[in-house]
């Protein structure tokens, strides 16, 4: 039998000899999310609420714009409406910051719960980067799911309110789908708004998970194994 370390000592590119394929990482992440559905829901709910609020604010502005158009048509009334107010954007931004901090907290909890698992994975040969990848993937997936739902719910509720107030669907839905939000005179269609919200939610979640994932990966395996949860 040759030396245990003969291939360690000499060769370069050891990293390439230890791998975690993306497909397997994704599968592990999916299992993690479903097995710990409660915690996953808490992580996702933060970004869900933040994005729902953002969507409600954006769609609320276009609702006001539509209202103004309708008022003008019916009553000849003209009033200034439909511009996104700086204060409201500020409010939406703050709510996203709060949501992000919530995710940091919830991911830190999640890392703590899994200390032992992380230690075990390291004993099996996982590189630090695998651990980071698993946590970021998890946060990203939860962020995308949460914000997709949030965008739909936020937009949906605003629409329902508006339709209820105006008392009919005629022409409104169509106007909304083509020009969900108006920024500086340019109409942005609904699908683009939803994609933007989902991407924003996903990116914020991944940013929020950076620190917890790094902390998880840097832990010495012995320390990780000692902890009892």
């Amino acid at each position: 039998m040759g030396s245990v370390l003969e291939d360690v000592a000499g060769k370069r590119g050891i990293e390439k000899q230890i791998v975690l394929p993306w497909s397997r990482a994704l599968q592990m992440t999916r299992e993690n999310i479903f097995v710990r559905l409660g915690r996953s829901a808490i992580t996702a709910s933060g970004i869900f609420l933040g994005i729902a609020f953002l969507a409600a604010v954006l769609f609320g502005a276009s609702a006001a714009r539509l209202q103004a158009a309708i008022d003008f048509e019916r009553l000849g009334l003209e009033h200034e409406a439909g511009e996104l107010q700086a204060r409201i954007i500020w409010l939406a931004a703050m709510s996203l910051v709060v949501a992000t901090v919530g995710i940091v907290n919830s991911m830190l909890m999640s890392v703590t719960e899994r200390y032992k698992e992380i230690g075990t994975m390291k004993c099996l040969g996982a590189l630090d980067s695998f651990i980071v990848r698993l946590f970021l993937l998890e946060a990203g997936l939860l962020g995308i799911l949460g914000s997709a739902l949030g965008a739909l719910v936020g937009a949906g509720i605003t629409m329902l309110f508006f339709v209820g107030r105006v008392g009919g669907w005629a022409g409104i839905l169509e106007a909304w789908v083509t020009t969900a939000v108006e920024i500086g005179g340019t109409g942005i269609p609904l699908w683009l708004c939803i994609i933007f919200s989902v991407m924003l939610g996903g990116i914020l979640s991944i940013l929020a998970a950076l620190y917890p994932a790094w902390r998880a990966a840097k832990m010495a395996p012995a320390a990780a194994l000692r902890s009892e949860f």
Partner: protein
Amino acid sequence: MSVYEYIVRTKDLSKFYVLGGTEVRALDDVALDIRRGEYVSIMGPSGSGKSTLFNMIGGLDKPTKGTVFIDEVDMAQLTASELAFLRCRKIGYIFQTFNLIPVMTALENVTLPMVFAGLTTDDALDKGMQLLKTVGLGERYDHKPTELSGGQQQRVAIARAFANDPAIILADEPTGNLDLRTGKEIITLLKQMNEEKKVTVISATHDLKMIDVSDRVVWIRDGKIERIEERKDIELQVGQMEYEEE
């Protein structure tokens, strides 16, 4: 010169912790040579430092001073990824609390180190099933750890430890959470793997049943080696251990 080939050597190995302002010497200048292919039990009461020694040999923790050589390579000189490589392919770990990944099935647990080692899915599944059959759990490959008994979980953990054909198996109190009979079964299994696969087994334990199968027993107390017994010395004493039988 010795006729033995040593796979693990420790030199002046020490680990100090500071607890409440006082220094605790968990390991104090331990020099231990482990022969290739032998079954070594590191015995001692809890708090004697055997788990610390286990962590040092396994590269899971850094010594305060001293060195661990695996095949004459100083472990402290290895980079993080070389260390990961070592853990992945050359050392198999077995723990008191089994430490299976709870969200994965038995087969997924066993194949995880093979995934890290770059085996294709098919090869990993074949080998994983083979290992599960070897430890007598071929039928239960699809069960999650929570659906398995302690003994079964430890069998899965043993199969996982052998995933990448390691040269060394490190076991930390492998029978500590098992009843007498299951503990014996696990010890027999470890001994069988030791003989069949010519793998070096290093087991930290205070389970006297382990003495039966050990080639050497290292007694540790207060972070120091108290004495090392060879197989031939031990056999004289085994008669006295019969009270351990059910």
